[in-house]
C-alpha cells in the first residue's frame, strides 16, 4: 500500500460515521434475523442463542463501565443482575401487571437501590479490596434470595414466568421478545457510547488512571465512583429483567458468585474498556455455557482455562489485542 492509500484507509477506519453506519447495519440485521434466517437449519435455536448473547452483552457492558472505564474490579455484579431479575418477576406477580414499563422500572429501581447500599460501603476501597468487598456483600444478597422464601421462592425461585406486554405488544412469542431484546440492547449501547464520550465518561477514566490527581483537580471521586456503580447496577438490572423473560425462570443462581464471575470473564476475554469487547466476550461465554456444555460435561473447566490463558497472555482481551495488532500493522 502506498503511504497515501494507507493514510486514506486509516482515515476511513477512524471516521465515526463509518462505525455509526456499521452499527445501524448490524442492528438492522439483528432485527430482521427471524425473517432472513428462517430458511436456515435450526434458526429458532440460533435466535435464542443470539438473544442470550445480547442479554448477557448488556450485563457485560454494564460491568465494563466499572472494570474497563472507572477501574473498579467488582466481583459482585450478580447482585444487581439477580436483583433486577427477581424484581421483574416479583413485581409482575405482586402488582398483577403485565406491563413491561412497570416491571422494567421495578427491576431498575431495585438494582439501583442494592447498588447504592453496597456501593456506599465499597467504593472507598480500591483494587483487590474493592473486589473482596463487592464479592462479600453480593453474597449476602444471594443468601437473602436463597433464604427469604416468602418473597423470593427460596431455592426454587420462580418458574414458568409469563412474559410481559410492551405497549400492547404481547412478548410471549419468541420473535417478539427477541426483537424487544435487540431494541433494548441498541438503546443501551447507544447510551454507553454517548456516556463514554461525555465529560463524565472521561472523568471516570481519569479516576482509573490517577484517582489522586483527579481529587487534586477538584473532582469528587467518591461521588463519581458511586454514581458509576449505581448506573452499572441499574443496567445490570435491565439485563436481569430481560433474562427473566428470556428463560422464564429466576433462581438464586442469578445472584450467585458464578453469575458475577461470568460477567467478569466476558469483559476480560472480550476486552475491557471497549464497547465491542464485552459483547464479544458475552458471545464466547454464552457459546461455552449453552452450546459447548451440551456436548462436553466439563464446559466450566474450559471456561476457567480460557480465562486463565487470557489473564496470563492476552490481558487486553480479544478486541483489545486485535486493536493493538491493527495499530502495529498500520505503523
Amino acid at each position, binding site marked *: 500500500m502506498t503511504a497515501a492509500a494507507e493514510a486514506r484507509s486509516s482515515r476511513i477506519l477512524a471516521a465515526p460515521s463509518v462505525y455509526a453506519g456499521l452499527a445501524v447495519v448490524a442492528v438492522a440485521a439483528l432485527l430482521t434475523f427471524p425473517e432472513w434466517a428462517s430458511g436456515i437449519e435450526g434458526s429458532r435455536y440460533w435466535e435464542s442463542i443470539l438473544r442470550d448473547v445480547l442479554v448477557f452483552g448488556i450485563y457485560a457492558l454494564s460491568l465494563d463501565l466499572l472494570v474497563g472505564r472507572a477501574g473498579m474490579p467488582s466481583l459482585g455484579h450478580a447482585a444487581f443482575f439477580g436483583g433486577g431479575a427477581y424484581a421483574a418477576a416479583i413485581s409482575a406477580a405482586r402488582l398483577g401487571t403485565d406491563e413491561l414499563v412497570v416491571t422494567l422500572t421495578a427491576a431498575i429501581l431495585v438494582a439501583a437501590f442494592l447498588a447504592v447500599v453496597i456501593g456506599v460501603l465499597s467504593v472507598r476501597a480500591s483494587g483487590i479490596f474493592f473486589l*473482596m468487598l463487592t464479592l462479600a456483600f453480593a453474597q449476602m444478597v444471594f443468601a437473602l434470595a436463597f433464604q427469604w422464601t416468602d418473597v423470593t421462592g427460596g431455592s426454587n425461585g420462580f418458574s414458568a414466568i409469563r412474559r410481559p406486554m410492551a405497549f400492547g405488544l404481547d412478548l410471549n412469542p419468541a420473535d417478539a421478545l427477541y426483537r424487544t431484546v435487540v431494541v433494548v440492547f441498541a438503546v443501551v449501547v447507544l447510551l454507553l457510547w454517548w456516556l463514554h464520550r461525555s465529560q463524565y465518561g472521561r472523568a471516570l477514566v481519569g479516576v482509573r488512571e490517577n484517582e489522586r490527581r483527579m481529587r487534586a483537580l477538584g473532582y469528587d471521586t467518591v461521588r463519581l465512583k458511586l454514581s458509576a456503580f449505581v448506573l452499572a447496577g441499574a443496567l445490570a438490572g435491565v439485563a436481569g429483567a430481560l433474562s427473566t423473560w428470556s428463560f422464564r425462570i429466576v433462581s438464586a443462581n442469578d445472584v450467585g458468585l458464578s453469575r458475577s464471575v461470568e460477567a467478569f470473564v466476558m469483559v476480560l476475554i472480550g476486552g475491557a474498556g471497549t464497547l465491542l469487547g464485552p459483547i464479544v466476550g458475552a458471545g464466547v461465554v454464552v457459546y461455552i455455557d449453552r452450546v459447548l456444555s451440551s456436548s462436553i460435561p466439563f464446559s466450566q473447566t474450559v471456561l476457567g482455562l480460557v480465562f486463565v490463558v487470557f489473564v496470563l497472555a492476552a490481558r487486553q482481551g480479544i478486541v483489545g489485542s486485535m486493536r493493538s495488532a491493527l495499530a502495529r500493522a498500520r505503523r
Partner: protein
Amino acid sequence: MSPDLVLQQALNGISFGALLFILAAGLSLIFGMMDVVNLAHGAFYMLGAYITLKIVDVTQQFWPAIVVAPLALALLGLVLEPTLLRRLRGRHLDQVLLTIGVALVMADLIGLFWGREIRALPFPPGLDGSVVIAGNVYPIYRLFVIAFAIGLALLLAYLHRRTAVGALIRAGVDDAEMLSALGVDTDRLFAFTFAVGAGLAGLAGVIAAPAFGVHPGMDVEALIYSLIVVVVGGLGTLTGAAAGAGLVGPADTFGKTLFQEFALALIFAIMAVVLLARPSGLFGRIRISR
C-alpha cells in the same frame, strides 16, 4: 433464649469460629506475604474435604486424611505458584483474577470426579460420642475442633515468632523487596508461603468434612466466610484471623438462632460497622478502604 440454649449456642459458635480460624489463617498468610487474595482458597478447602471423603470411603479411616489432604494441597500450591502466579509478579489484581480461573476449574473437576451430590461423613471413631456439659448433651467432635484450632494457633504463633522460617515470613510480609535485596530467594519463599496457605485450606476442609459433609457450593461458602473474617479481623496477621473468626463464628451462630433467614444481616452489620469505623479491620495493618 434459655440459658441452656445460650450456652449450647455459644459452644457451637466458638466451634464454628475455630474452624473459620483454620480456614482464614491460610488466606491471611498468603495475602500478608504476596498481596494476593487467593480466591481459589474455597476450592482448596473443598478439595481437602473431598480428599477426606475419598480416604474415608477407601480406608474406612479418618485420621490419615488429616495428614494426606493438607500435604496434597500444599503440593498443589507448590506447583501453582511458580507456574501461574509468578508469571504475573507485581500485578496483584491480575494474580487475583488468575485464582478465579483456578477456582472455576477446580470446582468443576471436583464435581466431575466425585459427582454433584451432597455426601455426609461419619465422625471419626473416638470423637463420635457426646459429653454432658452443664446438663446439656454436647457432641465431642465440636469440642475437638475448638481444641485443635487452639493447638494450631499456638503452633503457628510459635513458628511465626520463634523460628528462622517465621522470621523470613515476617520479613517478607514487612518488605519482600528489601528481603530479596538482602539475598533471600523470595521466589522460593513465596512458593512456600502459598503452599502453606493452601495446606491450611485443605486442613480446614478435613476438619469441616465430618461436621458439615461435602457438597457442591461449599467452596463459595468457605471463601465468603474467610473473606468476611479477614475483613473484620484485619488482613495479613494471625491475630486478625483469630479475632475475626472469634467474632464472626459466634455472630453467625447466634444470628441463625435469633433471626433465622436474616442471619447474614447481623454479619453484614458487623462488616459495615468495621469498614466504616476501622477500615483496616480490628487487628490489620492495611487499610481496606479510605
